[in-house]
């Protein structure tokens, strides 16, 4: 399996005590996210809504690509890829 990095948003790292960057394994984005949530089970509720999809304002990039419109199971990863989870800039207070 590929080893990839996941960069986490500070709101979640501070709440859950997760490092800002973690290493996970997976040949697809889905496998990598499953590995991530398996290591930190408290994370899943913050990433996914009741539909099972990423929450509306949670973005998941692989390198420079926003994966929102790409099926996670079909998005293949290679060693050294970087997954970045961040919140959409949606304005507000």
């Amino acid at each position, binding site marked *: 399996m590929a080893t990839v990095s996941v960069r986490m948003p*500070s*709101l*979640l790292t*501070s*709440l*859950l005590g997760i490092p800002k960057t973690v290493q996970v394994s997976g040949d697809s984005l889905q496998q990598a996210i499953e590995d991530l949530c398996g290591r930190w*089970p*408290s994370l899943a*509720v*913050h*990433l996914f*809504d*009741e*539909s*099972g999809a990423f*929450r509306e*304002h*949670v973005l998941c990039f692989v390198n420079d690509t926003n994966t929102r419109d790409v099926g996670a199971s079909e998005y293949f990863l290679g060693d050294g890829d970087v997954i970045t989870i961040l*919140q*959409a800039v949606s304005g*507000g*207070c």
Partner: protein
Amino acid sequence: MINLVVGTIKGGFVFTSDAARREWKLVREIFPGWTVTAVARTPSGRYLAGTGSFVYGATVQSSRDLEHWEQAAQSPAFPEGSDRRLDQIWCFNASGDRIYSGVSEAGLFFSDDDGDHWSPVDGLNEHETRSDWIPGFGGLCAHAVLVDRNNPERLWCGISAVGVFRSDDGGDTWTPKNEGVTPAVPDALHGIGRCVHGLAIDPQNANRIFRQDHMGMYRTLDGADSWEKTETGLPSGFGFPIRRDDRTGTLFVFPQESGEYRMPPGRTFQVYRSRSDGDSWEPAGSGPASYAGVLRGAMAVDSLAPCGVYVGTTSGTVHISPDAGDSWIILPFTLPRVLCVESFVESP
């Protein structure tokens, strides 16, 4: 010692004072950047907090010391595949060892392990009237749970823009209980469409419940089978929080000028109290000029004598009365918009 937790849209703030409650020290920020929407202490002495984010959702956090927090292994959540979205933890209350939590989108959950795992109260969440629940300005939230301390089978739940429901069988089945309350939703059916804002119960006699509603101030003397208006002395029947000093029975509210304005009627910070179970109301001391409102969770009463009263405003000020409303001090801080306030009298 008293701990005061103020939950805001940008985190929680823990203040402490001695029993005089006139000088307060900010000792800690908790959950910076997160909304802190509810705080409570379970019968075991464990603190629970509802935290959330419009990006990352809402969860329950727990602590033994208000400093070190841990996320519940399984926070309240609608089933995977549900078209409902849980976006806020609104309240906690205990009935024996069982803890209840009201949430939005409106739902009720319970925990039998002191807040680690939560399960849905299907009898309410899947109520036969559910398709007729219409969210109001504040959304569709189950913001109040009352328990009969003498009969754990009897519960009440307040849902904004829907009304009060009662269960007589430990939460298995629920019935709308809003007779006598003016509907807030046109053409309301099934006895719902009533916009309850806040509830307070007499723990010695749970038939006596006091209700701050969108349409006025009400009380029931028969466990919510019927309600009557009790607004004598109030400048407005509209408001959000209502709290009761269980030692004396004194009620505290913060009237606001109608649903359109949501500001104090006299443009001053002014709590009102009733020492007659709502028969009449009077100003409780006086406060400064203010245009700020007070949200439904942003008032607390402690258990000391005389009781302390704690009020946080939408402008981020926190007002404290150490003498049941006779006099007030203002904390020398401007916090973010205050969502909830809770006080905890700590054992020496």
